[in-house]
């Protein structure tokens, strides 16, 4: 393909605050072409190409330079961001991932499952009698954070503080990062201190839980240094809260639009696991992942230059009618895998935890909240990047 055809590919203005990954423009672009041009590089729109490029050896994770691109050139957050697992590639990434794997093992989830159930029930008890709630403030946020508390061995009561610190640190991902720098730095310092205290506790009382496993990996400091140990704990907190909060909110919003599926889930709780997958296919919170070309190469006849940013549009790929001929929301359908947890070397490390906690939550919610419906204005994050509801007022019939 020549540069002329590159210029002919559809263009998507992804920097426009009203841009929606589910817009007609994206559907038309996907129909016309496997990729679109954007403000930052290219966007990949179709299932097979997203699948292949997630694993492409000439692409690296693409947001590692975020602080620098935001004009922030040092400090605690920028150091952490550059050093943590997601920003690393090659040997360092592999080493860190090997060291972290045991802490994220599916074996640990079996023990956490009853805790997830207890947490979900406790939160539902808090609002069930009212017949209404803000599903984000009263369920998904305390649940997502409470799960991290369980994982870290912290009492549930710390959830509010942890959620606030993570949200302040999360300002780093916004367009106003530079203005918010002081808040971000203070939050990063507090989260690192949290991690330090947890590690000190586990060094004094060794165990086989999440932090305990990471402390064990840290026994050989050439494999996992003290700093890398703290950075990993901070990443689990930072990467685990908003994602789970948003994904569960998206699940509820999707089910409200498909009441017969909610009723089916209540009747057949074993469908909860499949329900998580189907929600993540039609409404992933991570609507795209970012990659960057490490060298010049050609893909599908398109020459791609080193340094090009490539957004892999997970949302668009898993609603592609070429691959999902009946793309409607159906928790009983056999589906090809979604990309809601990314894929390849950076595939979400927390997916066993996230799948486990969301399965338990949906199971209990469907049992206890009948006929959920919208009950006021839903406030949404932009329908691109990492999306979800900020407030989600619902009403329901308590079971």
């Amino acid at each position, binding site marked *: 393909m020549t540069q002329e055809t590159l210029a002919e590919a559809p263009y998507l203005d992804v920097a426009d605050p009203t841009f929606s990954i589910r817009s007609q423009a994206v559907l038309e672009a996907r129909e016309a072409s496997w990729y679109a041009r954007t403000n930052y590089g290219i966007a990949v729109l179709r299932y097979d190409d997203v*699948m292949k490029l997630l*694993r492409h*050896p000439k692409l690296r994770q693409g947001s590692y330079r975020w602080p620098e691109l935001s004009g922030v050139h040092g400090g605690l957050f920028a150091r952490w961001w550059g050093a943590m697992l997601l920003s690393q590639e090659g040997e360092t*990434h*592999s080493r860190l*991932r*090997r060291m972290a*794997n*045991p802490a*994220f*093992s*599916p*074996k640990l989830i079996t023990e956490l499952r009853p805790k997830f159930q207890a947490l979900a029930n406790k939160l539902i008890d808090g609002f069930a009698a009212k017949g209404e709630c803000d599903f984000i403030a009263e369920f998904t946020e305390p649940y997502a954070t409470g799960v991290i508390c369980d994982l870290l061995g912290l009492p549930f009561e710390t959830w509010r503080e942890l959620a606030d610190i993570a949200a302040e640190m999360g300002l780093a991902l916004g367009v106003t990062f530079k203005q918010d720098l002081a808040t971000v730095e203070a939050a990063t310092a507090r989260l690192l201190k949290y991690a330090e205290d947890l590690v000190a506790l586990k060094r004094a009382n060794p165990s086989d839980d999440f932090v305990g496993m990471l402390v064990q990996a840290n026994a050989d400091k050439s494999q996992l240094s003290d700093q890398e140990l703290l950075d990993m704990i901070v990443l689990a907190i930072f990467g685990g809260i908003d994602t789970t909060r948003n994904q569960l909110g998206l699940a509820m919003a999707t089910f409200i639009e498909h009441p017969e599926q909610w009723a089916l889930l209540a009747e057949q709780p074993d469908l909860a696991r499949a329900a998580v997958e189907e929600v993540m296919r039609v409404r992933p919170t991570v609507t795209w992942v970012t990659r960057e070309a490490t060298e010049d190469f050609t893909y599908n006849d398109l020459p791609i230059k080193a340094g090009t940013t490539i957004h892999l549009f997970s949302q668009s790929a898993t609603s592609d009618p070429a691959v999902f001929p009946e793309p409607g929301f159906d928790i009983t359908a056999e589906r090809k*895998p979604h990309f809601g*947890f990314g*894929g*390849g*070397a950076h*595939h*979400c490390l927390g*997916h066993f935890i996230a799948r486990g906690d969301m399965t338990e939550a949906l199971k209990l919610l469907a049992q206890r909240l009948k006929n959920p419906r919208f009950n006021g204005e839903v406030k949404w994050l932009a329908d691109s990047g990492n999306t979800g509801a900020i407030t989600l007022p619902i009403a329901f019939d308590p079971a």
Partner: protein
Amino acid sequence: MKVDVDMSICLLHGQCVIAAPQVFSFDDDGGLVWVAEVDEAQRADVEAAADACPEQAILLG
């Protein structure tokens, strides 16, 4: 010990290649290859790979 991968569910994430590089690797076409019979010295690595596989596609025998 025997190592097998259920290629009907493997999604080529390469987490096994990260966890046990002496046993799993990608060939030049991006296909997954592995050593079908490994000795005891590699047990820990292979078990770590099976544990970490996001699709739980690795079978040990």
